[in-house]
């Protein structure tokens, strides 16, 4: 594995610029990084780049809105309506208030997946830490929204199942199934993107020209599908958490 990977140049540049202050800051907190020459790992640099790209790009694109949409505005509206469509399909009309979280996470994961195809960059989602972060955010968010929608006690009663006598049996099963959700969310995304990047690297090490191209086309497809799936599952989890007892 070590032989196949090379360091990301942007991460090297970032570490050369900001490595010393970050090292001093970590020293203040009493944390000793494993690799003192590059205290900021490459995936964190890539996450920062993706976040800046999204903030600046979407911020610039949403300026000067008009009633008759121009090109970029209609593109943004199409993205917006795609997320809104998924939410209203699964949760219903009340699902529109979850749009900020779902849209942010969908766009972030999509950009993370796609930026790996640009030469000189890597996909931050091909590291388990990033995907686990996204999955944990979804996990905390849907429990919080469920408690907000139903009240904490009623939401916790959800876990015991419909029959009180069976509660001791059902409670552990429900708890385990809820904890397996972030695990499966993070591992699915990580496995897909990691395997796809590994495939491209292996193919490129056999024949460096032309042959990796179809695999990169497949990678675009995977990136779209995986971000869509992440959004879909997050919506389904939210729908399960905020649904009232009568409805199911």
């Amino acid at each position, binding site marked *: *594995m070590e032989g196949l990977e090379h360091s990301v140049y942007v991460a090297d540049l970032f570490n050369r610029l900001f490595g010393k202050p970050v090292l001093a800051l970590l020293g203040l907190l009493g944390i000793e990084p494993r690799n003192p020459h590059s205290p900021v790992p490459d995936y964190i640099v890539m996450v920062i780049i993706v976040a800046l790209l999204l903030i600046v790009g979407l911020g610039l694109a949403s300026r000067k809105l008009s009633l008759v949409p121009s090109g970029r505005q209609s593109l943004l509206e199409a993205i917006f309506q795609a997320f809104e469509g998924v939410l209203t*399909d699964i949760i219903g009309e009340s699902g529109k208030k979850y749009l900020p979280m779902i849209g942010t996470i969908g766009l972030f994961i999509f950009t993370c997946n796609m930026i790996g195809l640009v030469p000189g960059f890597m996909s931050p989602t091909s590291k388990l830490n990033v995907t686990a972060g996204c999955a944990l955010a979804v996990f905390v968010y849907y429990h919080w929204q469920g408690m907000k929608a139903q009240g904490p006690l009623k939401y916790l009663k959800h876990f015991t199942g419909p029959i009180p006598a069976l509660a001791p049996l059902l409670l552990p099963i429900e708890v385990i199934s809820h904890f397996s959700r972030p695990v*499966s969310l993070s*591992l*699915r995304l*990580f*496995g*897909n993107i*990691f*395997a796809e990047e*590994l495939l491209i690297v292996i193919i490129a090490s056999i024949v460096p020209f032309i042959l990796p191209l179809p695999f990169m086309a497949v990678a675009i497809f995977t990136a779209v599908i995986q971000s869509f*799936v992440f959004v*879909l*599952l997050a919506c*389904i989890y939210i729908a399960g958490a905020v649904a009232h007892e009568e409805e199911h």
Partner: protein
Amino acid sequence: MKKMRALGLLLFFVLLAGSPLLAQEAGAADRAPLYKLSIIVGGAVITLAAAAGAFCQAKAISSACEGISRNPGSAPHIRFLMIFGLVLIETLVIYALLVTIIILMIQWGKYT
């Protein structure tokens, strides 16, 4: 029933053929057998997972196509359910792939 018996017989022979590998002593200085075994196991895991996953996905897709061709009006609904199901099947294959990568990437010779 006959098919099941044939399958059981096949499994028995595979296990029989594999038993010398299982009986090998994993300790001692020589790590080469363990490394060989890890390659065989890694390949077998992803092969079985891919075969089973492909079979199940094919079943899901074929019944989704049948449903759509019988009732084209419900195509969006069926497509949504199909993608959802395919993703859940694919997740298990991805788990197997991760396990395979972990098995193959660990350099067994380094650990004593």
